């Protein structure tokens, strides 16, 4: 086993060395004639070796070791992207190389940070308002059956409707600043939260409910001690879905009008100027923020629903 690991480590080292050599070959005018053929063969060999290493890494288990395969896969994809863009001289407007995106991120950091802050404020405000309202209405609808029968089909309908189209109206009502984006995010996140919380509250085992009844527990006690805890996985599911939805809808709402900063504004403004690397930098920033947001919620979920079957493997 140890020898296997040493082999794999060596293969990773060889991968890195070949990768570096390849990248320096394709820069500038690029290789000609026989050298070009050699580069092709080297690249093919590199991909084969990569596949072999990934196969080895895929067998590793454990919290940190299990991350090696996806990490290497992601790095390799970035590298192939770089090689393809640099090697074939892909026009910058079509697809910038990863290093160009990194440079744009560094060069425009001041502006992008202000954009990020603007968007983050509207996302967080809208997310909290939408999720809170959805949760509250779900509790009400759970108490009053009539409301639930009436709301649930309408909420289901809302899933088929492009709600984000409400953005221009919200911009008219609440102005160009963050309030209008927060309003869009709140409306978009409301329905998933409502539907998921109701499904979660209904997911309780009949046996458990009967047990609560034999204890003589009323609506409130049953809700607090049995039904809300068992609805938590569903609530977290909605929280995770909504984290992405809120970010996307805030950015799309910024396309309809915003102050001179905000990630959505930056994207649409730089697209118009064909500064595609800055656009990708803004997207990378949004993606990173979205992933961190999602990851934080997943961590809280793990801490609060540790008893759930999906974590007790």
């Amino acid at each position, binding site marked *: 086993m140890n020898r296997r690991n040493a082999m794999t480590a060596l293969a990773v080292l060889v991968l890195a060395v070949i990768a570096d050599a390849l990248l320096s070959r394709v820069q500038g005018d690029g290789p000609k004639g026989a050298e070009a053929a050699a580069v092709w063969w080297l690249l093919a060999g590199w991909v084969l070796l990569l*596949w072999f290493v*990934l*196969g080895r*890494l*895929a*067998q590793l288990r454990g919290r940190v070791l*299990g991350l090696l*395969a*996806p990490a*290497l*896969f992601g790095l390799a994809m970035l590298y192939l992207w770089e090689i393809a863009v640099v090697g074939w001289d892909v026009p910058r*407007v*079509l697809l910038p190389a990863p290093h160009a995106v990194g440079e744009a991120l560094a060069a425009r950091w001041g502006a992008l940070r202000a954009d990020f802050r603007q968007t983050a404020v509207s996302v967080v405000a809208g997310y909290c308002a939408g999720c809170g309202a959805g949760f509250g209405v779900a509790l009400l609808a759970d108490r009053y059956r*009539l409301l639930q*029968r*009436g*709301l*649930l*089909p*309408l909420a289901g*309908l809302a*899933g*088929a*409707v*492009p709600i*984000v*189209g*409400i953005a*221009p*109206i919200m*911009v*008219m*009502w609440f102005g160009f600043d963050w309030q209008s984006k927060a309003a869009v995010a709140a409306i978009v996140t409301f329905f998933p939260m409502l539907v998921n919380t109701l499904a979660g509250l*209904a997911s*309780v085992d*009949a046996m458990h409910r009967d047990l609560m009844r034999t204890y003589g527990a009323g609506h409130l006690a049953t809700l607090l001690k049995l039904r809300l805890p068992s609805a938590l996985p569903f609530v977290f599911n909605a929280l995770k879905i909504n*984290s*992405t939805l809120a*970010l*996307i809808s805030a*950015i*799309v709402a910024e*396309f*309809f*009008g915003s102050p001179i900063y905000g990630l959505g504004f930056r*994207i*649409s403004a730089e*697209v*118009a100027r*064909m500064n*595609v690397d800055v*656009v990708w930098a*803004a*997207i990378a920033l*949004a*993606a990173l923020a*979205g*992933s961190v*947001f*999602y990851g934080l919620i997943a961590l809280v979920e793990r801490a609060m629903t540790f008893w759930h079957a999906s974590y007790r493997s």
Partner: protein
Amino acid sequence: MRTEKPSWAQSVGPVALVAAVLIVVWYAAAVWLNAPQVIERFDGIGNPWGARELVDATWSMERPVLPAPHQIVADWWASVFGADLDSPRSLVYHAGVTLSSTILGFALGLALGVLIAIGVVHSRVLDRGLLPWIIASQTIPILAIAPMVVVVLGSLGYPPLVSKAVISMYLCFFPVAVGMVKGLRSPEVLQLDLMRTWSATPAQRLVKLRLPAAVPFLFASARIAIATSLIGAIVGELPTGAQAGLGARLLSGSYFGQTIQIWSALLMASLLGVLLVAAVGAVERLVARWMGAAA
């Protein structure tokens, strides 16, 4: 505290009630939100006004803050049935433009998602290496690059239909890939072992066991995917390059303050979304009957 789903007849009454309450609230909100402008206008021309005049005026403004529901329906009706089908005044024309890229993107996304899922199920490297990235990529606001894709592909000479379909495809393939991986893995070990005793090849196992088992998962994902595909198509129409489509209609409405036009485009988009999801559901029922599932 019953948990079974209420029947269709049981929910008609409550739905109608909630809808009626919403409409009443809407009319009231229209009065409340439009009143300041109307009052200003009345006072400006020195017109004496009472409650009745105020309500009438707030429900019939040309550019209201919030149009009354009947104004939206009237505008929708006029632009659906009152205009030539190929004129840019017709909502049917715009909906058709949006629909075509929605469907194309949905089909491409479905194919891509299924292919990726088959790859992930059959290759350990793709399973451990690619799948985490597919899941992580759901946190990336792909929609945010929609305008860029349209502008960039447009500058390379691709028609807007293709670039909007590319965005829809991006949005569609995530739910399909994730759902299909689950579905292709849903056959039990016992069933897979049985296939092995028959010395079925991997291809036979895929076609005769895994794919049929994945069909319910495919349709569950497809319903989500077609709704997101529509959103992708609409957002793809926002940049100035797109002259037609529901998204372009929303944008021009917001530029010129034509609130009624925005709302009727929204109504059309909602109807389109509901119809598309219902169509996927209808296909699902057909396929289920064809596959011999218990109705």
